[in-house]
């Protein structure tokens, strides 16, 4: 869908801004909201660009820089922390040679830290796009990342 169509689907009232931003980001293959879209949105919704950017940047789920096809979000909140979230984070960093906030050279993965994902029953936990992975340890991490890389190579 184009930005215009997305706005039409939800209606151009201010209340719908977050929903519209979600849709714009979801349909971008690089998982982010690009500058052109914000300008277009500003015209369609009659909201200044600065307002849109100011609002969107408040929320951690929105990104303004291109991200990988798979966004890895590792929970860093206390319940996951005491069960080893730090180890998980470091394992991913070294396996993919990226630091928090960075994207792998092949554009496949972006690594992010996040606040509680609401799946603390299986701490330490992470999400890759919409998928939840819990009870993590280093071995599991290598397996999960390996499976995705395998799938993408085909």
């Amino acid at each position, binding site marked *: 869908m184009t930005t215009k169509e997305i706005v039409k689907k939800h209606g151009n*009232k*201010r*209340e*719908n*801004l*977050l*929903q519209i*931003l*979600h849709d714009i980001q979801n349909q971008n293959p690089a998982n982010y909201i690009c500058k052109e879209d914000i300008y277009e949105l500003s015209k369609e919704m009659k909201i200044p660009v600065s307002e849109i950017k*100011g*609002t969107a940047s*408040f*929320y*951690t*789920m*929105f990104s303004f820089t291109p991200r990988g096809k798979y966004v890895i979000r590792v929970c*860093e*909140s*206390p*319940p996951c*922390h*005491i*069960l080893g979230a730090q180890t998980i984070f470091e394992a991913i960093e070294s396996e993919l040679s990226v630091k928090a906030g960075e994207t792998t050279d092949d554009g496949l993965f972006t690594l992010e830290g*996040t*606040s*509680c*994902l*609401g*799946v*603390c*029953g299986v*701490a330490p936990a992470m*999400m890759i796009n*919409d998928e939840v992975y819990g009870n993590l340890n280093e071995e599991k991490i290598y397996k999960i990342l390996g499976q995705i890389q395998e799938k993408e190579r085909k």
Partner: protein
Amino acid sequence: MNRIVLENCGKINPEDIEEYIGADGYEALGIALEKKTPEDIIKIVKDSGLVGRGGAGFPTGLKWSFAKSAKKSPKYIICNADEGEPGTFKDRLIMEGDPHRVLEGMAICGYTIGANTAYIYIRGEYRLSIQRLTKAIKDAEKLGLLGKNIFGTNFDFNVKIKIGAGSYVCGEETALLNSMEGLRGEPRLKPPFPAESGFLSKPTNVNNVETFANIAPIILNGADWFRKFGTESTPGTKVYTILGHVKRPGLIEVPMGISLREIIYDYAGGMSSGKFKMAQVGGTAGDIIPSALLDVPLEYQSLQKLGHNLGSGAILIMNETVSIADFLTCCMKFFAHESCGKCSICRIGTRQIYEAFKRLGKKDAYFDELKTIKELADELKLTAFCPMGQSVASPVLSALKYFGKELAQGVNPDKKHEPVTRENHNIVLNYS
């Protein structure tokens, strides 16, 4: 039988409305619409003693009566399903396990206060909850249990879903309203309270998922039945999430007033490793409780007497391997990240306390670090604009109170503050 909120979870297929109806589902809504006036319902909910389960513990019947007497229209109902408090996922499991129960409670509330439109503000990560609620709304509309002319009466009730975008403070009800209006999720000044001026400046009633899930059984079985559970001051049950170093982490629903010791050893199977050192009750904004308090009954009043709070119902159990300085560093990192930035004590204070705990963890803290932390925490408690900043004081002050000795070991008595000069000014500011 202790279950009220979770009685259907795991027993019925949450995606099949017939199974919910088979378990007396939507009967309470029918009774409310056909046999009771809004005044009757407010009386029942007030008599039941139900208090909100979103953390603040406000009496639900009273809240509804405010929204009911508000003059402006239309009125709105919001179900707060943002659930950002670390360690909390009870609302997710309620929505996944019994979505119709939540919708039924919302519809009864709508009839009571005179609202025809409701929103569920749900965090973006909860895909399955969103799916199940979306389906539940559709199914209920098909059977005339939501939508137009419910039960053949002239009461209309529509429920829509709004998806959040990753912000803890948006769980605070006025920040949530701003977020729903497509603005930055910064808290609003109260008063006016949402009951008077909420979503789009119209009267709005905000309740937590678990609060709504308690409504249908209360209407069906009456206030006296509900009061048989829990304690005199806080009737009913509470859904807790137990986490950390226990054998069986997860979700339980127990009567109000049972102790931490019972929760750990009777419900969670005991410690998974090591010895009990401390618990954090109520999520990251909750107090740190030492082993000396294992037998205090968990309910709003007893805890308040000790200056503690029950909060969201998350209970994090920790053994002796967890260092208090490291743990608090992690808590403070969370707050520093989630502070909305509207007021400086919270925006900068959380950051300063974070840095201080980090230094304590490295055993390289300033000689007066503990005093500085206490001052900042006291100031947050007194002057922060919203409850998020105020609540930062809970973990910090309770940690100082019960684990002050351990923290003091991180102090380097020889480390004095350098006076800020033109040369080191930037270094001082450049905290990362």
